């Protein structure tokens, strides 16, 4: 029973365009959401987060949107750069403060 789902295993976009990565969750008690980026042979690194009391958080080229009624969040990267090519994981914090991860989306930004 996956509580956090990333239904797109891969995404390919042109450099300079927008990348939109999606994440759905089932547990309405999740109160904090994070995105992590992972390069090969490295551990996941924190990218951006959002509290459930907000609907948007922006950090430079990265923006996360949260739609609580739809139990959906998305990560927008504008403009996309080749260095953004990585696997992106969505994670949610549960009531015991541990993180539940999605299965990841592999983003490829084409030069």
């Amino acid at each position: 029973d996956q509580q956090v789902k990333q239904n797109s295993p891969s995404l390919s976009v042109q450099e300079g365009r927008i990348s939109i990565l999606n994440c759905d969750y089932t547990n309405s008690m999740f109160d904090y959401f994070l995105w992590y980026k992972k390069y090969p042979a490295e551990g996941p690194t924190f990218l951006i987060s959002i509290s459930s009391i907000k609907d948007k958080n922006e950090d430079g080229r990265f923006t996360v949107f949260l739609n609580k009624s739809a139990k959906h969040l998305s990560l927008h990267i504008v403009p996309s750069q080749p260095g953004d090519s990585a696997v992106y994981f969505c994670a949610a914090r549960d009531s015991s403060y541990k993180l539940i991860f999605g299965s990841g989306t592999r983003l490829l930004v084409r030069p």
Partner: protein
Amino acid sequence: DAGVTQSPTHLIKTRGQQVTLRCSPKSGHDTVSWYQQALGQGPQFIFQYYEEEERQRGNFPDRFSGHQFPNYSSELNVNALLLGDSALYLCASSDGPTLATNEKLFFGSGTQLSVL
């Protein structure tokens, strides 16, 4: 400032063997969590250690055990290895066991375990 360090980076074992993986948390962090990342999947929570005690546990059998030392470093032990235990094992550290809003886990690069 050293981040989270894990050793070894790669390990090959055979079924039935036992393995020990090691982790040193980021400087200033006192809590260590272990995750298993199978191929094509996201990290799955195994357990968390704080003050040398297991504080939380995910849905993993008792073959998975751990330890935390006074210097906050940690070990993950897996007994009676199965083929399905082949995965990337990630260690993550944080400042305290409750991940407050605006805090985040810092991950190591992981140990790739292959069970033959």
